[in-house]
């Protein structure tokens, strides 16, 4: 319980760091970073076996951020976890920075796979899970997808593949914030009933509140215990979570805040921190 509280606070602090990064460079994705804050924090600070001193430690769990536009949230978490100095975050999206607009595995320590073009992470995760099985290694593979990303047919090709090989060492998490770049997912390209879709593809779906760290911790454990088939955690979240005027508004998918918006957002996020 204490850990859950600590991680919840961490996630909210990360939102503030992300806001700073995106405001500074006037570029980047706030909405989808904020919705994924608790998910990424729970993974990086609780669930994943990692060794920041040795990012390539062979036994580490693998985390693929398929929704690569949430890169700022990943970078903040990786820096806090000790993969690189926190001051690097100030260079986000600048020339010569190792922190590219979208994750680049060749540049950033701790980034398992390059992403940014939506749809690819699950297939890559399938390959990583197959490799782990061939090596009889006990490490696990986690892939975080956006829900808009599920429009892409290639996600479902990967879902078929994971199902065929019964990859019980693979956990997918869908950041179900219900909003994509152009508007609500159910208006742009309806996904519901989403749980049934995954079920019919041979996966074990679990639905949770994606901002509730305790629930996330429990379901991530359940996915391990499940065995037999791959698990997908449909994490219900709020796009732009924590800033009232950003929440559930597709406008904030990829737009940076101006000074006034920044200050209001900062105030709200800091206020949110005191309420945890």
């Amino acid at each position, binding site marked *: 319980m204490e850990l859950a509280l600590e991680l919840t606070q961490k996630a909210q602090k990360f939102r503030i760091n992300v806001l700073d990064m995106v405001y500074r460079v006037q570029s980047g994705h706030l909405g989808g970073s904020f919705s994924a804050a608790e998910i990424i924090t729970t993974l990086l600070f609780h669930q994943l076996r990692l060794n920041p001193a040795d990012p390539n430690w062979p036994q580490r769990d693998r985390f693929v951020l398929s929704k690569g536009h949430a890169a700022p949230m990943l970078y903040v978490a990786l820096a806090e976890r000790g993969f690189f100095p926190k001051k690097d975050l100030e260079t986000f999206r600048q020339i010569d920075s190792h922190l590219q607009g979208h994750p680049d595995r060749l540049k950033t320590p701790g980034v398992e*796979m390059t992403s940014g073009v939506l749809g690819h992470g699950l*297939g*890559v995760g*399938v390959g990583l899970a*197959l*490799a782990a099985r*061939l*090596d009889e290694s006990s490490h696990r593979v986690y892939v975080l997808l956006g829900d808009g990303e599920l429009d892409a047919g290639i996600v479902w090709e990967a879902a078929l*593949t994971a199902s065929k090989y019964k990859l019980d060492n693979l956990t997918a998490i869908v950041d179900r914030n219900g909003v994509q770049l152009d508007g609500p997912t159910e208006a742009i390209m309806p996904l519901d009933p989403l749980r049934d879709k995954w079920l019919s593809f041979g996966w074990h779906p679990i639905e949770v509140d994606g901002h509730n760290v305790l629930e996330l911790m429990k379901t991530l454990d359940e996915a391990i215990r499940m065995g037999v088939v791959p698990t997908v955690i449909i994490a219900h979240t709020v796009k732009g979570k924590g800033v009232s005027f950003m929440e559930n508004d597709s406008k904030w998918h990829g737009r940076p805040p101006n000074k006034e918006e920044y200050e209001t957002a900062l105030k709200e996020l800091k206020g949110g921190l005191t309420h945890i």
Partner: protein
Amino acid sequence: MRKAYGEALVELGAANRDVVVLDADVSASTQTWMFAQRYPERFFNLGITEANMINVAAGLALGGKIPFVNTFAFLIALRAAEQVRTCVAYSRTNVKMAAAYGGLSDSYDGPTHHSICDLAVMRSLPNITVLVAADSIEIKKAVPAVAEHNGPVYLRVSRAEVPVIFREGHKLEIGKGVLLKDGDDVTLIGTGIMVARCLDAAEILEKEGVKAQVLEMHTLKPFDMELLVKCVKETGAVVTAEEHSIIGGLGGAVSEALAEQHPTPIERIGIKDTFTETGPYFALLDKYDLGVTDIVRAANKVMRRKDEEP
């Protein structure tokens, strides 16, 4: 050639336990069924999901495996092009793309199955090494060399039984061209089946008193500039010959290199920016101006340009 490829893959599988093979429901065509039979635990048939196959291979490569993905050339280079760019080229994952049915070699299936722009696509992607095997001996040499090479590779394989031009002792070094025949009047540069046709053309030219040099460029990228310039300095005239569009492949590579490093008259033999048709393989090559006589004609023409151009 494809049978030799399938056998080479089985041999490689025995030598290297990290080698895994993926196919997209065409293992009977690509001949990976042989590997599948011998090493079922290291063979993954992913059905008709070419783009997904590339991503899964990228994941396997990240996991320390050496994945060979297999399907028709146009499907890798076109259907899965974005996956190749993002998850293989940009990410520099150690994925080996074995592109079957290269060029017009699946001739009877027609333009939907012909691959005439794959080399242009692959050449323009950073980090990808691009190879075209010329015969069944070369493909056997290429498979282990590609596995040993650290980084993504596109290896074009032919469906057809093409003339054998190399002996068993042939050594293939990625990035190094092969001088097959010396001469000082004109340089004929070929890839794939067109190497054999260049050799035939050289013989005809010899009877006409023309000494043609024949160069095989199995590696389109990185391109062996040093050998190219050295050869062209000796002859001052070039014909390129490839089973591909004249845009962006071997002819493109040679033109780009020489324009900057040693301007020289060039004639390009290849598909002339058009779609092809169904028919018997060798006759189809001839119809689309990839015949031996076309090479001879181009050689004579380019040699005349030597005198005409300043």
